């Protein structure tokens, strides 16, 4: 691909991008949020039409007017936003669009058998081929997407942040499959914000910044990570995790106290305490039930047993408004579907939980609201600026900042963060870590869930390990290392 230009109304997403991929290599595509990575691969997949530029395949110039035409060439894509149909079964999703059929009638038995083979090849034979995809965990859905890509005769596989919803073990598994493919001569384009993954799997790197190529075909060996970061962000970022305070904050007042909390079928007997100024991390495998714990504390799910206290006062079960009134805020896992009003202005998304503050007898004073939102976005460095802009047009990292701004404005006592840096680039990531630490220092109690063990260990003061709905271990973050956490998570030997 060369000189690819793609414009959206008001945005030049790609301004002349070059990319060349060779058979059998893993070509990594990196760049900050909004750099244009997803847009580029959508052009490659025939989902978008470029305004300018040339795409060549096997040396011959070609056009990709529809997704089908790309598939016919052997280009399979796993999109960043998992594109599956929730009510169709696993097998039906995998063969959607290229169904195994005779005379228009679908061949169910053949489809299911083929699906089982594919899933087994991916090391996930346990996923039922006839289950509805909507009922699978995000990680399993990711596997289905993989299987979908492999169900075609693939020569170029494009993976857009496949590891975002996967934990360590899953990522290893993914890499095994990718290596198997490259060994067969398949070319792979790999997009990720986790630079250490790129070190492990990548052969060459292309760096995008603001819609143009700043470097292409860099060999992975011999390009230091700091150089990559500099290319991506235009500056060097040194401290990824902010330093912990010197006095352990466990000595502060307990703010959030959870006792014997249980949700039937998901987790049981969760006890935890978060003190003012403390950051507590929840580590565990995907599907261990950490999101559910946060959501239950927040009242978004009705606990079947146990109590939640904030500043000593017990909250009503299953009531989000009660939790919010008591000073809890949640930045949920699925930003777009659970947190944001995508088509509404940034300022409205920020003030939605505290709008009564800007209203007299229910009537809003719009200016005060907007001004406050502007202050916040400026202090969080949300880009692009402009609080009237629809949140949809912001990049993932900036969207996450908007969610945090919502709770900053609310001046929460307790902040629950579920995967706060999922899909967020390196630069924004360190800003978010910094922000969380600043919040804690101002006396907020923070509970963080993350699938990246490194993140939990780096950010939190104290770590809880969750396995199959049970808290199996608790310790100071300084006293536990990554492999120990992984051991606990996998085998669950209680210390």
């Amino acid at each position, binding site marked *: 691909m060369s000189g690819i230009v793609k414009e959206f109304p008001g945005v030049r997403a790609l301004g002349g991008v070059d990319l060349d991929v060779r058979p059998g290599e893993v070509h990594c595509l990196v760049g900050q949020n909004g750099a244009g990575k997803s847009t580029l691969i959508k052009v490659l997949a025939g989902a978008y039409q470029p305004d300018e530029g040339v795409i060549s395949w096997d040396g011959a110039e070609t056009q990709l007017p*529809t*997704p089908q035409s790309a598939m016919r060439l052997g280009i399979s*894509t796993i999109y960043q936003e998992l*594109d599956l149909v929730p009510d169709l079964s696993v097998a039906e999703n995998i063969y959607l669009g290229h169904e195994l059929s005779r005379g228009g009638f*679908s061949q169910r038995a053949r489809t299911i058998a083929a699906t089982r083979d594919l899933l087994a090849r991916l090391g996930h034979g346990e996923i039922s081929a*006839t289950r509805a995809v909507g009922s699978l965990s995000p990680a399993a859905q990711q596997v289905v997407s993989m299987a979908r890509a492999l169900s075609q005769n693939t020569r170029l596989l494009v993976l857009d942040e496949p590891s975002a919803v996967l934990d360590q073990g899953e990522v290893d598994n993914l890499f095994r499959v990718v290596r198997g493919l490259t060994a067969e001569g398949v070319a792979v384009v790999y997009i990720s914000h986790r630079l250490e993954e790129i070190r492990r799997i990548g052969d060459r790197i292309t760096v995008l910044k603001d819609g143009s190529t700043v470097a292409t075909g860099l060999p992975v060996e011999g390009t230091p990570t700091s150089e990559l970061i500099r290319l991506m962000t235009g500056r060097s970022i040194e401290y990824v995790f902010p330093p912990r305070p010197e006095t352990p904050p466990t000595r502060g007042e307990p703010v959030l106290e959870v006792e014997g909390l249980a949700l039937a079928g998901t987790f049981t007997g969760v006890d935890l305490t978060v003190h003012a100024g403390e950051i507590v991390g929840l580590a565990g495998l995907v599907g261990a039930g950490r999101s559910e714990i946060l959501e239950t504390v927040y009242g978004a799910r009705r606990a079947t047993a146990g109590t939640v206290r904030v500043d000593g006062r017990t909250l009503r079960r299953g009531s989000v408004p009660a939790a919010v009134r008591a000073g809890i805020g949640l930045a949920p896992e699925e930003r777009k579907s659970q947190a944001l009003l995508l088509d509404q202005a940034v300022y409205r998304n920020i003030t939605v939980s505290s709008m009564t503050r800007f209203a007299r007898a229910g009537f809003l004073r719009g200016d005060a609201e907007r001004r406050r939102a502007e202050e916040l976005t400026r202090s969080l460095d949300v880009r692009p600026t402009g609080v009237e802009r629809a949140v949809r047009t912001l990049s993932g990292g900036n969207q996450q900042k908007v969610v945090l701004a919502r709770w900053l404005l609310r001046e929460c006592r307790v902040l629950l963060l579920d995967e706060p840096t999922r899909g967020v680039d390196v630069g924004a990531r360190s800003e978010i870590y910094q922000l969380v630490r600043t919040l804690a220092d101002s006396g907020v109690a923070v509970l963080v869930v993350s699938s990246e063990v490194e993140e939990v260990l780096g950010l939190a003061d104290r770590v809880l390990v969750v396995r199959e709905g049970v808290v199996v271990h608790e310790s100071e973050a300084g006293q536990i290392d990554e492999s120990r956490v992984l051991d606990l998570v996998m085998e669950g030997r209680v210390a």
Partner: protein
Amino acid sequence: MSESPIQVSDPRGGADRAATERAEREAAEAGRPRGRGRALLGSGLGRNLGLVVALVLLCIVGAVSAGDRFTSTDNALTILRLAATLGVVSIGMTFVITGGGIDLSVGAILALSSVWATTLATQQMANDTHWLVMVGAALGVGAGCGLINGLLIAYGGVVPFIATLAMLASARGLAEIISNRRTQIVDVPAFRDFFGAEVIGVPVIVLLFVLVAIGGWVLLNRTTFGRRTLAVGGNPEAARLAGINVQRHTVYLYVLLGVCCGIAALILISRTSTGSSTHGTLLELDAIAAVVIGGTLLSGGRGTIAGTVLGVVIFTTLTNVFTLNNRSISEQSLLKGAIIVAAVLLQQRLASRSTST
């Protein structure tokens, strides 16, 4: 991937509702045994348990209150004959709704088809050549109207509600102009003979209904067309990226429904021996209600032909039981509302019950 992209027609119940949905989905999943024959049975009984219970209750009420006036074969056939028009249209509507659309113009299309197929000129030609001319006219008009709906929606970008509302007004207006607002009487003996006939005691129009139902079931559940319909309704963007031509498929769906309206027009022409611009008034609401009560999601992505057929039969049986019992119109409509809500709530409870087992 959002777990449940909650749509316009979902209740705004938030978590509880989302939970119910998930539960329902899983119930459907869990209740489905592997074998092919049993799959049919399992899904039929598991998913539609509430409806089956409602229908059985209704039949018990009918049998108790009206005795063998209700239980006779003749009465059953009367119910089915009545159900045929609504049934055929509702099956087509199931496809459109499953594919994420809606069609308010079915009654008007039916009227226009019935009028067009019974103009003097058409009848003349039918008598001169073959009565299939009338069939062709009805199906052709239905398909044509469906095509216009589909093109406006898929390529014109007009929302289905508005496009088909416009079609409602226009098609009925055109039907009135063509018929000069007069009822057109059918005088093609061969046509009347064919549609008025019975096969081993079963009227042809009931057979037609049954055939359309079976055809619809196969099409939705056993063909790539059906798969794609579910995909287009469930997640149009994913369907597009999977290489499905979503726009063209959408057009097909409306044409299919248009053809169903044409078939329903033929049934109604045969029953009344007339074509009229007043045929099918308010059919759209009944059809949509039958489909949704049957369990098809109004937001698309999930559809059930068996449920739709049950919904239609419940509606018509309700009317029949009321008639047999000599109830006043107003009581009927008061009760009808209550029964609809009760059936839906029952359906929900039973669906979530079967999860826990």
